[in-house]
């Protein structure tokens, strides 16, 4: 992206949010296949220029949601608009505004990377010169220049994903759907993909991504919705979701049971595990509280073997909201 676009991209989403309709809006989407309910009434609201993550385990309905919002399949009921266009009455307008990168790479495996890109340029009706320029620029940006003349069947998983995304960008879409963009990628390719996604949003587009990885949602998304069994069981920013689960704790490990017992007596709180010889003390893990804790133990000559700080992460949220169907209990415990 050239710098000027990046600059306006940074500020425009917030300004736009008041004027233009949201990038994605869905109310009470339902879809079932026979007796099997896949989506049981989900609502979505994604402002322009933001990254929205739909987080959920396999079979939660993530791919079905993307398929509906990208016009591949129809919902049984519910209203939805993408880039301001109604999915039911104006699917072709929706298609003109979106780009989709599927869970299984949507590249043509029998032809080369360059030919795949040319195919996209032709389908977007770019003229020859413009098509060549856009294709060359994207191949360069996604580090695919060397591989451009090779058939894509010879590409690695990471290269294929990059080509897939490059093809999606040929039409300069406003809203991009990424269905599990990093599933099956090695850590390095995953980080490359994350950076690419961040750059996209800096350029002003809206990204709707699905993922099974909590870390990915935490790293990228402005807002996260947790999908489980066809329902959205939690939604908010990463921080808001983390607040749903009890705070962090410090785990103290001891070498013998006597020390553990003395520590508990001195501190007067914590969850004691006699087998593991550990004591879990509530605390946020800040330097201040850690120092206070260690001072008390030192002052009473309690020998601590080791200490680990556990801050709540999305894993806790995920298990809290999907592991227990009535998550009220988890919150009020």
């Amino acid at each position, binding site marked *: 992206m050239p710098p000027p676009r990046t600059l306006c991209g940074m500020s425009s989403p917030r300004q736009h949010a008041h004027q233009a309709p949201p990038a994605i809006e869905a109310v009470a989407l339902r879809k079932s296949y026979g007796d099997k309910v896949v989506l049981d009434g989900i609502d979505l609201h994604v402002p322009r220029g933001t990254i929205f993550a739909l987080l959920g385990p396999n079979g939660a309905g993530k791919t079905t949601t993307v398929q509906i919002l990208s016009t591949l399949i129809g919902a049984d009921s519910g209203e939805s608009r993408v880039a301001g266009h109604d999915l039911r009455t104006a699917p072709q307008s929706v298609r003109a505004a979106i780009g989709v990168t599927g869970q299984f790479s949507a590249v043509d495996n029998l*032809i080369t990377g360059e030919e795949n890109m040319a195919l996209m340029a032709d389908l977007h009706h770019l003229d020859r010169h413009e098509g060549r320029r856009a294709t060359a620029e994207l191949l360069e940006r996604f580090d695919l220049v060397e591989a451009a003349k090779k058939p894509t069947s010879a590409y690695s998983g990471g290269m294929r994903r990059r080509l897939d995304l490059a093809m999606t960008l040929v039409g300069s879409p406003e809203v991009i759907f990424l269905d599990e963009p990093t599933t099956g990628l090695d850590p390095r390719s995953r980080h490359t993909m994350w950076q690419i996604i961040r750059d996209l949003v800096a350029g002003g587009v809206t990204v709707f991504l699905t993922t099974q990885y909590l870390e990915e949602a935490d790293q990228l998304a402005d807002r996260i919705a947790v999908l489980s069994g066809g329902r959205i069981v939690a939604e908010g920013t990463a921080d808001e979701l983390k607040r749903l689960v009890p705070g962090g704790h410090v785990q103290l490990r001891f070498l013998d049971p006597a020390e553990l017992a003395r520590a508990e007596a001195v501190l007067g709180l914590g969850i004691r595990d006699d087998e593991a010889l550990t004591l879990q003390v509530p605390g946020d893990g800040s330097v201040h509280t850690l120092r206070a804790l260690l001072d008390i133990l030192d002052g009473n000559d309690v020998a601590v073997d080791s200490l680990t700080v556990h801050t709540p992460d999305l894993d806790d949220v995920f298990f809290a909201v999907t592991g227990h169907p009535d998550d009220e209990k988890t919150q009020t415990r």
Partner: protein
Amino acid sequence: MSTTAPLVRDSRTMLRRNLLHARRYPSMTLQVALIPVFLLLLFVYVFGSALGAGIGHGGDRTAYLAYVVPGILLMTAGTGTVPTAVAVCTDMAEGVVARFRTMAISRPSILVGHVVGSVIQTVINLVLVTAVALAIGFRPDASPVEWLAAGGLLGLFVFALTWLSVGLGLVSRTPEGASNAPLPFSFLLPFVSSTFVPVDSMPSWIRWFAEYQPFTTVIETLRGLLTGTGIGHNGWMAVAWSVGIAALGFVWSLRLFDRDAR
């Protein structure tokens, strides 16, 4: 901005894609051209003398060659349905076709690309088979106009069969299924027709079917155009069958394609 209609423009792009595939992986399309060539040689050189006597008028091997070539051309059109159905079925499972469905392109162009690509390949096969027939002594007495009419009718029939095979490819769940689905058109109808023997020689219950089924009407018309036998009602029936099959295949295929993606 081009003023070309989106359907034409996108179909051209899809055709380019399909021809690229066919050029890189030509194995199956060539294979299906070998079947009619093999049958031509088998029937002319092994059975030709006996069958030539059977078709009457004191026919010999050369007379049988003239008799059998139009049917062999239809068989070439028939075997061409198999790679089409398989290619369409395989393609529909590809992620890139799901991508096409989410793009603001003319949707029928995806199928039109397959149809035009397949017709071109089958026409190439027809030229190859005709060349073999001419090389082993087939000497039609057709005028340029008759050649043109024969080529036109064959082209129309191939177009019709191709739309039908696109539908068969769409309705098949696996490539194996797709290679079996066109069996009536690649094997059954070409045999139960006047390809190898006149329908007069068949028992009456099968003769009625063989006489009026699409392949026979096209074969008899081609035979008339190329070798001067009587055409009669076969001419308009051949055109009617072709147009009917094309329309049916077209509507059926588009309807199948517009279902939800699998």
